[in-house]
């Protein structure tokens, strides 16, 4: 089992979701995060004082998949999330040693 994690631009979430649905991956967990990277932040003004804000709003998408599907899923997410402009984000894969479904207690691929 693998966990595919992606950092994307927030407005790309639904495109990513649709891409996953097309692959019959019917689950994901999303959170709002702040990203800092090559993409420049912006400056904000507060009563005449300027502040550089390095962090930009991003979303973090986590998808649990079985080993076979990892590449397809990663690829699909990348394609869906791409705008071609800097700051599009990252996708990475980590290994999952065990997985359970809370409702049933099922373990392993069953739990997906």
């Amino acid at each position: 089992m693998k966990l595919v994690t992606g950092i994307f631009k927030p407005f790309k979430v639904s495109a990513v979701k649709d891409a996953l649905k097309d692959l019959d991956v019917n689950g994901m967990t999303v959170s709002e995060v702040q990203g800092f990277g090559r993409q420049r932040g912006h400056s904000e003004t507060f009563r005449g004082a300027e502040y550089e804000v390095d962090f930009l709003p991003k979303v973090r998408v986590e998808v649990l998949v079985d080993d076979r599907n990892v590449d397809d899923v990663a690829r699909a997410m990348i394609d869906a999330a791409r705008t071609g402009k800097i700051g599009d984000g990252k996708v990475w894969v980590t290994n999952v040693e065990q997985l359970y479904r809370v409702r049933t207690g099922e373990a392993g691929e069953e739990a997906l």
Partner: protein
Amino acid sequence: MKVNAGDTAWLLVSAALVMFMTPGLALFYGGMVRAKNVLGMLMQNFFSLGLVSILWAVVVYSLAFGGSGRLIGNFDFAWVEHVGSTLPPGFHLPVPPAAFMSYQMMFAVITPALITGAIADRMRFAAWAWFLGLWMILVYAPVAHWVFSPSGWLAQRGALDFAGGLVVHVNAGVAALAVVLVLGKRRGWPKRAMLPHSLPLTLLGTGMLWFGWFGFNAGSALAANGVAAQAFLNTQLAAAAGMLAWLAAEKLQQGHATTLGAASGAVAGLVAITPCAGFVGGMSPIWVGAAAGAACFFAVRMKFRFGFDDSLDVIGVHLVGGIVGSLLLGLFADAAVNGPSDGLFLGGRWGLLGEQTLAVGATLAYSFVVTGLICLVLKRVLPGGLRVSEDDEEEGLDVTQHAEAAYSSELV
């Protein structure tokens, strides 16, 4: 004329109440946009309090109320001349002239602010600033003169507008249509859901608007008398009926009565009773409010059918509600309550309805055409055009137009 303290107190309070509607409107709209655009929305509204007040003092008040022309005022009151000492021609009221001028100023402030709801999330602030100034002079001033000045051609013909159904709501509503047609849709609309980032803000704005509307409508009696009291009562009943009608319609159509529906229906009722407030009595305000609540519920879907992106339904609510109210006044007007003429139901005569229809038509035509021209010219003339760039639209108005974020955590 000697100043009457009671009438003056009421007029000043009413002016303050109408002023309070603009921040209320800002929040009403601001809650409905996404979090990245809320300051852009608030700013467009607050800026109207700034720019329009000054323009009003410098020239627009004079163009709207000065002189006795049919089509437009003059420059008698320009640069705040005579404002403290003289009421405009045709007004004989025991109140200080400055109170009258201040009260009317607040209407001028909120009218263009209504338009901001239609253009949400995509207009450059600089473009809005230019638009605002031109619109006040070229559209608001003449239309206000036609209707509110006793010498205006619509007033002379006998069209009635107690508190601005034509001048404020029909006028701003159709102008909103013209602007969105030139401006175009938001990226992704209507496919992408753009849900309200804070409905509690919107409900707060609703409360402020409703509260202020008593100044708007009952204050338009320009005296603390029975007409004001009647207008006050009618205002409350129409708002209530508008709310119930909208909620009933959506419950039947979609299975849920929504909080935003309650707010929208109340505003629809308030819009529709505005022209009628001091001219109808009995159960009439309930019928007017209910008709508007139901009509506007259905009207807000037009934009999906016709494909114009009236983001927060200025057209569906203010234009439609304003027309409903202005025309129903031709049916429900009751000279026994107040005013020169009965409507169809009480007087049995079509005359008033005809005048109301003409007045609606004239306002629609003039405001639509001139507003459209202003937009087309600005689109051409302004270096940056009317709209923000695609990237800026994605990033949001707050950061790109105003270098601010509405909500900051401690991470920066």
